[in-house]
């Protein structure tokens, strides 16, 4: 897939992707006697290291599906496995990025990045000591281009920087899957394109599995190896479309005939 050499892993161990299997997953919300089917019969196999976009309008169950994989919601039907293991509750093997960066405003960027390792140390699941963690935090901040901002508080960072800090915070716990819930939806168009560039580079570097929820066709085609189009009544995955564009992908690829062809197919699937 990649034209150039594989990303070096010498200076820090790369995280590795896990495969994700959704098997006819369904979820119904009951509130005040009303039943709302959020998602129904959703099946999807995502290979290790693959980047799949879940695309659909509001209320198509894409966020619900992502939260089920995260372990924040239990499915009523079907099963979810990550790396062969059934999902049971949230865990650091599945990083989650939200529409807002969700940085902890009382912590500096560096301490935000260190939140995961320190929380895991408190839980007894991370044995590393402070100097080791500090080195890891510094390396991760450098990777996302925030070397000079370890001591800055979130409110001192620009929108794009906040998202990069959130990315660093999620990656420092070495997840095998990254779940992204419309992460760049609130950014301006220019910053957003830069974040696409950033995400693609990071994905090439870390080689982890990414499930990316969006309602933007262009974004889905730009980023994904495949696009899972969601919608319908009851809501579910309607069609999974391959994106046969080259990797590593470049922003200019959005201007190619091939890109437009895929976009047309996706749009048709959405309208169907």
């Amino acid at each position, binding site marked *: 897939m990649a034209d150039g050499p594989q990303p070096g892993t010498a200076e820090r161990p790369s995280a590795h992707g896990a495969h994700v299997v959704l098997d006819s997953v369904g979820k119904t919300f009951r509130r005040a006697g009303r039943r709302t089917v959020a998602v129904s019969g959703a099946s999807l196999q995502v290979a290790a290291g693959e980047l799949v976009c879940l695309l659909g309008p509001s209320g198509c169950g894409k966020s619900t599906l992502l*939260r089920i994989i995260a372990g924040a919601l239990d499915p009523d039907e079907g099963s979810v496995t990550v790396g062969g293991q059934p999902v049971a509750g949230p865990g650091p093997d599945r990083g989650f990025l939200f529409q807002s960066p969700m940085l902890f405003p009382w912590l500096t960027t560096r301490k935000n990045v260190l939140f995961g390792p320190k*929380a895991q140390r408190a839980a007894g699941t991370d044995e590393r000591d402070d100097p080791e963690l500090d080195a890891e935090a510094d390396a991760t901040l450098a990777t996302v281009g925030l070397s000079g901002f370890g001591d800055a508080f979130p409110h001192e960072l620009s929108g794009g920087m906040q998202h990069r800090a959130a990315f660093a915070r999620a990656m420092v716990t070495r997840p095998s899957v990254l779940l992204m819930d419309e992460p760049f939806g609130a950014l301006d168009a220019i910053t957003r394109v830069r974040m696409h560039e950033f995400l693609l*580079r990071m994905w090439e570097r870390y080689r982890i599995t990414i499930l990316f929820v969006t309602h933007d066709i262009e974004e889905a085609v730009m980023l994904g190896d495949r696009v899972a189009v969601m919608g319908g009544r009851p809501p579910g995955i309607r069609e999974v479309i391959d994106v046969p564009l080259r990797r590593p992908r470049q922003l200019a690829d959005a201007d190619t005939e091939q890109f437009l062809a895929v976009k047309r197919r996706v749009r048709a699937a959405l309208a169907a």
Partner: protein
Amino acid sequence: MSGWDYGSLSATGVLDARAPSGQEPGRGDDLAERAELLAHRQATRRARLRRLATGAAGLAGLLAVWQVAAVILGDQVALPSVSQTVAQFMHYLGRPYPAQGKPLWFDLYISLRRILIGFVAGVTIGVAAGAAMSASRVVRHLVDPVIEVIRPLPPLAFIPLFIVWLGIGELPKEVLIIVGVIPVMAVTTVAALDEVPEDLRLCARTLGATSRYALLHVQIRSALPGILTGMRICMAGAWSSIVAVELLAATSGLGFLIMQAGDYLNTALVFAGIITIAIAGLVLDTGLRGLLMLADPSRRR
């Protein structure tokens, strides 16, 4: 190096050669952005100093107007001058007033003690009640109407009741503060906890935090600035309650001192008492504001 520090990436060969780093327009390098951050912080510090200086000038202006007015008026009972007030303050700071009473520092100590005991107890109960209301819908629906009924009542309305129930010792004064503080703290705590986004806890959980760790280090920590803001509101209310009850039903405290001085037409001492309250209130509020700034870095300006 570009602003995103792709330099470290290009070494790994991931960066494609077509997009040379550091050449995109309008995107300064890492060092420039760092310098911008430091400059911004320095400007914030300067702005704060300027604001403090302006505030001090305002207070100095008030004192100057007061002094000039007192000198023109020439009536020590109606309006003593600043210097007379300071003289009375210094005189009675260590000497009892009235003769069989207590010195000013002791009255200040008594008032502060009542406030702090009542404040700490009230905040503890109020925050606990707010946390319980936020955690349990049943508790919320049970307690909410009680608080809504009590909250608009001025605590001072309870004074006769507390004197009948609890006598004229220290307890009724402390209870008065507690009764004023609890509903405000309960309401602000509920609001602060409700305001923490559900996803912030999920975020902590996906980073490997246990449910308990996320509750303590994220949810409660996130509500802290709101709770501290509630405490500042309560502290101001506590001062008006305590001085009022000391004016009416006490034999010590700054309110009592002011009342006595007024009865004997020692207006300068009345002013001295009022200014003592102002300064003590300012010191306590500054302390709380300092805590708030520690808890919420975005307020450090």
